[in-house]
Every structure is written in structure tokens, then in C-alpha cells.
């Protein structure tokens, strides 16, 4: 497997910290790209701000690094203006669910044919390890020094409730499933969400190996129904065909 042909050599090395699992997601995405056999020349990768936002600059595709939280809104414009493009959106958990929460639920509601990959390390990495809407209750971060008092989002349940038609959760440990799921999501017609649970060795002060060990032992494959999905369940939780947004909008033309 040659990764080099998908990477911008002049943009390397990445600015991610040693042991960051974003590299694992990047590699999984490249394998998924090959697996899905989509046209590389018609693929646009959009990202937001934060560590995950840098994903776009390393990929040798047509790429857009947007403003914080708005990646899905930019991607909506790109896809609507040219529905023949494959548009993949990388976001962090803060990006997608805090500042971009509004755009996230509306993209789900519209069922626009985008693939949203949300890298969830359960905190804000680039800004220095503060609490995110996905930080577990009780967890200590820079902005929750006495333990997080907020209830975290379950991204999978949120996406399903808001109307996304392909919803999955995997982790940076379960890379084979992850890569297959990304390939499926790219081929899925409609709004796809894949949550990838990772971690942050720098701010969680954990060894990368310990984070992988945690992901391996805590996250279990499941095909639970909506009511029964737990935050530690991984798998594909929703896959349905519903009329797609661009087709409806372009259907009004002529």
C-alpha cells in the first residue's frame, strides 16, 4: 500500500504531536479512498479548524481548510454547486458539535450527500486541552479543573435523531472496520457521519499505547437499536435511503 501518492510531500511532516492518532485516521482514509475506487480528480476534502482541520493540507486532493465550525456549511455550498463531486468533511468534536453544532444538525436534517468524519478526542487539542461537548462528566481539563459538570453529547444518537442516513462509530484502534466504514460512507448517497474516537496523548497526558489499549478494551462492536446505543458501542448504527438534498434542489431547475 502506497500512501505517498495521496500525500503532499511538500506539506510534510505533519504538525501533529508525536503519538497523535490523527495520523491513523488519515491513513485509514487513504486506504478507504482506494477501496471505494472513487474518482480522485473529483474528490474535495473540506476541514474545519483545530488539529483535525489540518487533515486537508496533507492530502494531495482538492482541499479546503475553512473557518472554525463551518466546514459543513462550506461543503454544502461546494456539493450543491457541483453535485458530481465527492465531498468529504473532516471535523473535530469541538468543531462539529460546539461551534458547528447548528450546521451539523441541519446537514443531517437535509440529508445532503456529504461524508462527515468527526475525530473525537473528547477535548480541545489545539487550544490547549479544554473541555468539549464530548468530554465525559467528571473529567478534569484546563476549563474543568474540578471535573466536568456538563453532560456530553452522544454523536451517534444526535446524528440519527437529526436525520443523517448513515451513522457509524469506530475508534482509532479498530482501523479495519473504520476504513471499511469510511469507504461505505463515501459510496452512500446521503449524509454520512462517522465518529472516530481517538485521544490526545499531549493533553490527556497518556501514552499513545495506553490510549489504544483503552480504546481496545472499552469499545465493543454492537448492533444495538437506537434506544440501547451506549457511548462505548461501535459499529454502523444507521443505514437507510432517503431522498438526497442536492437531487431535490437540482430537480427544481429546468
Amino acid at each position, binding site marked *: 500500500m502506497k500512501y505517498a501518492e495521496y500525500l503532499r510531500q*511538500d506539506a510534510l511532516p505533519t504538525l501533529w504531536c508525536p503519538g497523535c492518532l490523527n495520523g491513523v485516521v488519515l491513513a485509514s482514509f487513504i486506504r478507504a479512498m482506494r477501496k471505494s475506487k472513487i474518482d480522485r480528480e473529483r474528490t474535495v476534502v*473540506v476541514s474545519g479548524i483545530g488539529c483535525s482541520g489540518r487533515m486537508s493540507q496533507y492530502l494531495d486532493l482538492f*482541499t479546503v481548510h475553512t473557518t472554525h465550525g463551518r466546514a459543513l456549511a462550506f461543503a*454544502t455550498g461546494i456539493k*450543491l*454547486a*457541483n453535485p458530481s463531486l465527492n465531498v468529504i468533511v473532516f471535523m473535530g468534536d469541538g468543531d462539529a458539535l460546539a461551534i458547528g453544532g447548528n*450546521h451539523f444538525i441541519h446537514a443531517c436534517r437535509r440529508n445532503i450527500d456529504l461524508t462527515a468524519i468527526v475525530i473525537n478526542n473528547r477535548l480541545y487539542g489545539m487550544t490547549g486541552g479544554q473541555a468539549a461537548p464530548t468530554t465525559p462528566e467528571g473529567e478534569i481539563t484546563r476549563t474543568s479543573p474540578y471535573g466536568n459538570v456538563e453532560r456530553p453529547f452522544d454523536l451517534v444518537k444526535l446524528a440519527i435523531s437529526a436525520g443523517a442516513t448513515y451513522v457509524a462509530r469506530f475508534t482509532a484502534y479498530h482501523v479495519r472496520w473504520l476504513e471499511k466504514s469510511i469507504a461505505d460512507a463515501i459510496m452512500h448517497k446521503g449524509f454520512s457521519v462517522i465518529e472516530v474516537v481517538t485521544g490526545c496523548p499531549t493533553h490527556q497526558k497518556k501514552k499513545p499505547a495506553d490510549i489504544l489499549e483503552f480504546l481496545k478494551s472499552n469499545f465493543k462492536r454492537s448492533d444495538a437499536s437506537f434506544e440501547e446505543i451506549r457511548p462505548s458501542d461501535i459499529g454502523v448504527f444507521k443505514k437507510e435511503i432517503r431522498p438526497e438534498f442536492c437531487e431535490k434542489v437540482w430537480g427544481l431547475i429546468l
Partner: protein
Amino acid sequence: MKKKELLQGNEAAVRGALNAGCNFFAGYPITPSSEIVHGMARLLPKFGGVFVQMEDEIASISAAIGASMVGAIAMTATSGPGFSLMQESIGYAAMTESPLVIINVMRAGPSTGIPTAPSQGDVMQARYGSHGDYPIIVLAPASVGDMYRLTIDAFKLAFEYSSPVVVLSDEVVGHMRESVSLPPLGEKVECKGKVKNLFERKHRTGLAHLENGLPTTDLGEYRRLIERLFSKFDDLKPGVKFEGQKDAEVVLISYGSSYRLSKSAAKLLLRNGISTGVLKLETLFPFPEGEVRKFSKSAELVIVPEMNRGQLVKEVERVCCCRVKGVSYYGSLILPEELAKIVEVLL
């Protein structure tokens, strides 16, 4: 064939946009700009374009920039509070050099203000609204005809300079109906210059970047980039129009609906034996320094009537050597008689 019709400013903007080839509109309704959103929703699909109502103004401008990046001729329209929400993305469009037209039909503020009351309070926001140093083009229509013409000009400039362009209208111009003779809907004007879409430059980012689009933190490169963004507009010819007596004693410098009052006030002043000229600014930014200086060179007094507490007057003061006075009024128009009286007192 042009025929006379009774049109509203906002409707004229829709016609201008469609004739300029606009094929992507993303917006969120807000008074007093909603008629633009309504018009685009109804007409764009008939002209092969895409209309989308986004969840808010931030999403609207973001979607429009995204569309522009893949080659669409994109526009959004809003009013005061929505324009404030769009500011971060306006800076992003300037940094990524994305051609885009943003119409702001100003209303009384700050904050929610009076949604239906006229104002020209967003002049400085249009110029300096986003963070950091960036240049921008701002055009100000004063009539229904201007709304049509300047919307088309905005698209031309957006593509010529690969930049966002703001059409800064106000409630009076947006809602007023006038009898106009405009080219009919569908009479296309070629304004798509050299479109630099995504496929010509492979990476776009709001970060300081090299020419290939990849980010850099090299200060020399950063300064070169900012310098280039500003110098792009060096050859831009600003739209100004001078009427009245040459070497006039009093020059009224005006834009938007205030220009119309200035014109009427000038007539009254002339009748009273005061030599008066009116300089209409259609381009507010880049600020037409040379033209303002030229037409006010021999004036004794320059008056800048504005529907705000004094915004553009500061730019005028900067370049004029004579006495400069702002006349502020807001929430409603000022009568030409009142304006003329104020000028006579100031003189």
C-alpha cells in the same frame, strides 16, 4: 427593448444578479433585505441556478464561498445583524481570494435596532468588520437603477479582483419603488472574468499561505501575501460622479439615499446664491481619496450628510484640506430643506 417599470431596489438587485449570471444564492431572510432572498428563491431555478436557504447567515456566506470555490457565480444578501455574523467569513473570502457578492441592506442599529428604519450605520463595518488587515471593495447604490447597475459591477469586480465585494445599500434604496428602464430579466451581461476555482489552486486556507496554497508561518511570506492582497486594488477606478458648479464653495459628499437628499439640498442652496457641488460616491472602499481631494480642492466647506453618527466623514476629513462637517441624522431621512438650512448656518 427597455421599457418603463415600477421596481423596488431589492427587486432590481435580484435582476442585476441574474443578468450578471449569478447561479448560486445562499441566504437567510432578514428585514429589510428579504425581498432579495424571495426573488432569488423564485427566479434562480428558472435560470438554472441553485437557491438554498441556510440555517443562519454564517452558514449562508460559508456555502456561497464554497460554491464560489468550485466555479459558481455566488451571492448572499442580508441586513445589519446578519452582516455582523458574516464578518469572519468575509475576511476568509478576502484571504482565500474567493469572488463573491454580499448585499447588505442596512437598517437602524446597533443590535436589533429598528428593523424597518433606515440607516447607514454599517459603513465602517463593511470596511473593517473582520479581524486583521485585509482590503475590500464596497459599493453604495443610491437608487433602484443603481441597485441593478452596481450589483452587476459588484460581480465584475469580484471576478476581476478575485475578492468579496459588498454592495452597501440601505433600507430606503432597498424598499423604495421607482420608475426605471432596465434591461429585461435574462439579458445577460458578461462578467465572469478569469474564475480561479478550486481546481486551479489545489488548497485553500484562511491561514497565511504560500502561492501554492500551503500554510506558512514565515513572516516574510506573510507580509508578502498581505501586501499583495492590498496592492491588487491599486488600479481600481472608483465610481464617483460630480454635479454642480465647478470650484463650488460648498461640496456635499454623499452616498446611498443621502445622495438624493444632497442633490435636492444643493438645488435649494444654488437658488439662494451659494455655489454648490455634489460628489456622489459609488465606491466607498477602496476610499476614492484622489477624487475626493480633487473635487473639494477649492471648496470652503465640505459637508458629509450621513444616516449615522458620522462614519465616512472621518475618511473625508483625512483627505480634505478645507473645513469638513458631518451632518448626522438616523432612523429616518432628513428633509432637503433642513439639510440646506444646516449648510447655510455652517457656512
